[in-house]
């Protein structure tokens, strides 16, 4: 018997002529972990929001069909009424935090759903303990690392003891170890409690090992719904990049040109005096693509910023030859101008022709006149990439360019980077499959700040 069911669900966001979901019918069973896959913009997050009642209540738009959760029709019961029966863990933990202290944050949902006051603290602490974060209960949310914050947010959802748990790309900001730990934990707890889980992910390798069932959305339509064993074979035939390790993007080179950036024994500490990098050295040569991997907090971004000249080392030396550009993790930072081509032209002194070429290179030809904020999340990522490609740098530094990017777009990105060997490229990534696919050399940065070259 399905706990939640969508029947002939179609939905279009306000102002959009293209439906985000088209005639989707699916049921979710207690204790079953269902993985929903699909390219960016295929409707995965919209489906999760429909089961939470956020679609259509929070977003508005055109809704047809029916969604039921524990016998409640979501058209008549809004998200606040459904909270507790369903709980959602969103992609970006920083966008869902309400309170400043961990215990209060976990208690917030319990307070909202009317938990008896004398039970709230005990249940919040138990939820924190269940995710191994009880020691964080008195900490300020702002002091937590990305992994710790995502655990706290998971505790906040589990504290509600929901019957349906919705996980919307919950590991996109975590390193592979952290992602594995979080997913295994969430799914083990859900199975123990008989909770139905609907999980959306862009790095499908691990979830495919843990889930029972797979859905695939393509342009808003449900094109596959079946057990995980059958899903692997189907994906290999129809979407091989979802089950392969990054795909073939060409020959990996071994001979490169001149050095464009050399970091020699650099150290860096932020204002809180925590030493992030200690005596690290790295050399980047023209034509070479280097992937920088390592756990959260190991100093990857700091090293990348030092290479790009955004930070100056407190000791050691950085030599750069030519121009460096740096792609930030957040594509929302490339929205300063009113048009896409003007935004891209910022780094090339307003040269709109160069901007148009860069937009075309990332597949955004014809989008020149659109406002950057009107672009979809996937298009914004490409716009940001175009903005750092347009100056034709000698050193291109990309910080987590595959966050929230589907496997097929990752493959395109790898091919794009490998097509140009006139520059050195440094890619900071948590995505090991992408690193193997794109890089000539992988440099691993450990928590003890030791660089390991492979």
């Amino acid at each position, binding site marked *: 018997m399905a706990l939640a069911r969508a029947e002939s669900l179609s939905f279009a966001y306000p102002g959009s002529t293209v439906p985000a979901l088209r005639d989707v019918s699916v049921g979710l069973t207690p204790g079953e972990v269902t993985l929903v896959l699909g390219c960016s913009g295929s409707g995965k997050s919209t489906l999760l929001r429909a089961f939470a009642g956020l679609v259509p209540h929070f977003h508005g738009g055109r809704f047809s069909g029916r969604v039921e959760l524990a016998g409640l029709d979501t058209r008549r019961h809004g*998200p606040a009424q459904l*909270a507790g029966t369903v709980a959602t863990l969103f992609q970006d933990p920083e966008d869902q935090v309400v309170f400043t*202290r961990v215990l*209060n944050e976990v208690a*917030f949902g319990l307070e909202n759903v009317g938990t008896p*006051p004398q039970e*709230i603290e005990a249940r919040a602490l138990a939820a924190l303990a269940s995710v191994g974060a009880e020691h964080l209960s008195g900490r300020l949310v702002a002091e937590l690392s990305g992994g710790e914050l995502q655990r706290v947010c998971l505790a906040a959802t589990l504290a509600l003891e929901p019957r349906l748990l919705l996980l919307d790309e919950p590991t996109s900001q975590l390193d592979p170890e952290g992602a594995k730990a979080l997913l295994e934990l969430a799914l083990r707890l859900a199975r123990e409690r008989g909770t139905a889980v609907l999980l959306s992910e862009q790095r499908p390798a691990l979830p495919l090992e843990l889930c029972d069932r797979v859905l695939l959305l393509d342009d808003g339509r449900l094109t596959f719904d079946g057990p995980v064993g059958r899903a692997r074979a189907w994906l290999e035939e129809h979407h091989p990049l979802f089950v392969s390790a990054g795909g073939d993007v060409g020959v990996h080179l071994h001979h490169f040109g001149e050095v464009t950036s050399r970091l020699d024994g650099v150290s860096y500490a932020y204002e*809180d005096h925590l030493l992030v990098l200690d005596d690290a050295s790295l050399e980047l040569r023209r034509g070479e693509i280097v992937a920088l991997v390592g756990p959260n907090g190991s100093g990857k971004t700091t090293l990348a910023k030092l290479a790009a000249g955004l930070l100056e080392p407190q000791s050691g030396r950085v030599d750069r030859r030519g*121009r460096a550009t740096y792609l*930030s993790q957040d594509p929302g930072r490339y929205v300063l101008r009113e048009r896409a081509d003007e935004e891209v032209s910022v780094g090339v002194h307003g040269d709109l022709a160069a901007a148009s070429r860069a937009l075309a290179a990332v597949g955004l030809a014809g989008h020149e006149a659109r406002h950057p904020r009107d672009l979809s999340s996937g298009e914004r990522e490409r716009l940001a990439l175009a903005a750092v490609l347009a100056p034709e740098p000698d050193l291109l530094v990309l910080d987590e360019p595959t966050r929230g990017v589907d496997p097929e777009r990752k493959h395109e990105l790898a091919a794009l980077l490998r097509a140009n060997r006139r520059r050195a490229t440094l890619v900071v990534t948590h995505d090991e499959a992408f690193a193997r696919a794109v890089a000539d050399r992988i440099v691993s940065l450990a928590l003890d700040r030791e660089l390991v070259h492979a």
Partner: protein
Amino acid sequence: MRPAPAAALLFGLAAAALLARHTASVAALAAVLLVVCLRAPVSRRWPYLIGSLGSASALFVLTPFVERLPGTVFWSGPTIPVVGTLDVTSTELSGALFNACRLAAVSLAFSAYALWLDHDRLVQAAGFARRSVLAVALATRLVPALERDAAGLVEALRGRGVEPEGIRGRARLLSPLLAGSLERSLSLAEAMEARGFGRPDATRLPQPRWGLREPLALAGAALAVVVGVLWL
């Protein structure tokens, strides 16, 4: 100290600064509040101090040019159509100093509230006005959030080899900053609704009892207002 009485005390000091009639009294209140703010960590306090002291300084500098009060003329400038002759007199300067101290005291009281109070507890202590207090607490967090966003926008620009220069360069960041904060507020609102915010049957985490300092702070707040009206 629990946040509600502390907020009341800060409110009392700000009210006293608004009610006082002597520049020295207002300046003393501003100095006390400045000391409180200076005890906060450097990385957190500087946007508040720049905002508070910067706006007070701007008020002090501009007021004599827009007021026309008699007194000893220290400087006389050109005649501007509609505005008249620009001059700076002793009365205008003393009035400007008084109002600048007032503004500094009130904005430093807000800064101390933002920097020192546990906003979570303030929200939880709020009775019938919990939703309003939560809105204020979230708005208070806007300042550091905007600061982080601004740093991110500048970093993305520098990553393209562009340094935002001067007031004009930084002013161009205001519009994207505002739009970004609106986007984030929507995400937060969605997450709050998904977690049941707004349900009529909401309960709250029990609060610990008050100690001696809390009623003392409330008394201090009331005293500050009375003293402000009668003697300062």
